[in-house]
């Protein structure tokens, strides 16, 4: 198990290095640079600024400086936001995105497993048909529609009850998180529901379920102890990539609900070619996702004994 984790971590470090290098050169290949955003800069001022940020150096040298800074955990200072260090931006805004993303994943996973199991048990009957209809909606409707609809719904609910049941936008308390997390997790929940349903139906036809019936176990016991765990396996497999989809896809939801997450800075930086912020956020997100995928793989090993040994 230890060797397995060590191997995965090493592969992760290489992945992150690759992400950093690819992003660095791709970014510099884009025409223009961060200084273009400042209007009417004279040549002299421009030269001074380039010298100050090291942009006049050859690209190879810039790359080496960037990598050595990165290894020391320093991503430099933002070009567009005066005197803000990239590390500070990440430190202040990432936790917001992370909490939102984790809450969304939890809602999506629990919901997906629950609805998926339910639809499998009620296969081809009314609950199944109703839920599967909603699932198709959840998969095909884009996130910003749900975000706007969710917000609108909150406005009406608050108006009907005359009290603030849940805040419509903003950030700070747990009640602020619920609606955006739900909206963010909805697409993933729909996907997981479908996956869980198929997987559950497969498991229900397995020989060992017949054995469980022959042992005279109650339906509840067979469901909880024999069907659920085996049916969850494929769901856990896609959880890693889904975490990445949710955390990077969070920008729209963060924007609609006015949440001070990292996503906004990420997109803004790309628009303004803010080199240091792009590099910092990309490498950081990359590292985070690699870590999540490793965590999911380890989790998988706990659920499926066959994976544990072969690793």
């Amino acid at each position, binding site marked *: 198990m230890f060797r397995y984790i060590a191997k995965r971590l090493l592969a992760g470090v290489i992945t992150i290095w690759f992400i950093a290098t690819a992003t660095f050169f791709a970014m510099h290949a884009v025409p223009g640079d961060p200084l273009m955003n400042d209007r009417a800069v004279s040549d002299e001022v421009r030269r001074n600024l380039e010298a100050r940020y090291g942009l006049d150096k050859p690209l190879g040298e810039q790359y080496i400086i960037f990598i050595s800074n990165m290894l020391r955990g320093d991503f430099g200072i933002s070009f567009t936001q005066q005197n803000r260090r990239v590390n500070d931006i990440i430190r202040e805004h990432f936790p917001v995105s992370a909490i939102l993303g984790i809450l969304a994943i939890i809602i999506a996973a629990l919901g997906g497993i629950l609805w998926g199991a339910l639809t499998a048990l009620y296969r081809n009957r009314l609950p199944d048909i109703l839920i599967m209809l909603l699932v198709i909606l959840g998969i095909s409707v884009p996130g910003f529609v749900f975000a706007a609809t969710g917000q609108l719904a909150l406005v009406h609910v608050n108006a009907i009850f005359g009290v603030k049941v849940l805040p419509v936008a903003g950030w700070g308390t747990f009640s602020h998180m619920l609606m955006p997390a739900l909206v963010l997790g909805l697409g993933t929940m729909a996907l997981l529901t479908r996956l869980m349903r198929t997987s559950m139906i497969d498991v229900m036809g*397995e*020989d*060992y379920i*017949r*054995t*469980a*019936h*022959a*042992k*005279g*176990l*109650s339906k509840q*016991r067979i469901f909880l*102890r*024999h069907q659920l*765990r*085996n049916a969850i*396996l494929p769901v856990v497999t896609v959880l890693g990539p889904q975490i990445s989809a949710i955390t990077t896809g969070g920008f729209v939801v963060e924007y609609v609900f006015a949440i001070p997450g990292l996503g906004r800075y990420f997109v803004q930086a790309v628009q303004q070619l803010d080199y240091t912020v792009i590099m910092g956020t990309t490498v950081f997100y990359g590292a985070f996702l690699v870590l999540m995928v490793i965590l999911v793989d380890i989790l998988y090993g706990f*659920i*499926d*004994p*066959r994976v544990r*040994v072969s690793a």
Partner: protein
Amino acid sequence: MTDSILSVRDLAVEFDTFGGVVKAVRNVSFDLTAGQTLAIVGESGCGKSVTVQSLMGLIPMPPGRITHGRALFKDQDLLSIGARGIRGHHMGMIFQDPMTSLNPTMRIGDQIAETLVVHKQYSRKHAQDEAVSLLARTHIPEPGRRANQYPFEFSGGMLQRAMIAQALACEPAILIADEPTTALDVTIQAQILELMQTLQQDNGMSIILITHDLAVVARMADQVAVMYAGEIVETGSVEDIFYQPAHPYNQGLQQAMTSNQQPDRVLSPIPGSPPDLFSPPKGCGYCKRCPHAMSVCAEHPPYLTAVDASSHQSRCWLHHELAPVHNNPVRRP
């Protein structure tokens, strides 16, 4: 019979399919004697598995349906809804493919212990210890270590031993073995059969053995029921079935089987195939393949007739007193 532990009467099972209703089992009756082995033999699709699965409540409903019959075990009808407590407790079952019949994500020991926890209210610890000693009884080496392993760490033969340990956990009065050795190679087959015999002698339990392997029947069975097209066509002691086959189908089977006594005999297969159970024939199901078929066979279903003074019975018109005696292969003076 007074020492009958299980008596099945007029069992009929149907399945709804896209092609129509399949009458898989039609009016099957048999008795299981305490401490003995009853073998139910027949070719694929003759309803032998469906018969025992209905006793264990394993018929998926829908599409399955038990339309008729009773199966009395200690005055309780196994076909009624309240019989779940008997399954796994007083009746254990093992299956054809041990590789897929155990839960892949649960330790072997836990799977065996589960039955004891549910039916005998053992504590977890007590049930675990019992599971280890059950594995030891089924000759699994290092049972303590093996109990903590998962099915994928076992070989096929060992898994079938574990299945037997699981089925016997609550010391059932009846063990149902549905083709227990079909998926195993021949040497392992012999070991598993021997294990079942020893455990039967130790526990005094009865076994219902489903198989299409007549060699296994000859080795294991006391009583035999031959099934064909959803019906029992002949039933009797193992000697009766092998040495005095009374039904033309059983005679055909014996003709198609190799024998040590006559190594040079030419084997003759039974021509044709079993009838379509979507619409079972009006008369005898074997009539189209039977070399001795008479006009009555196509019109009226035959009934089980006593062949001799013992329990030997056969479902054939040739046993009828009005059947011609000349060239009659089944009537003995």
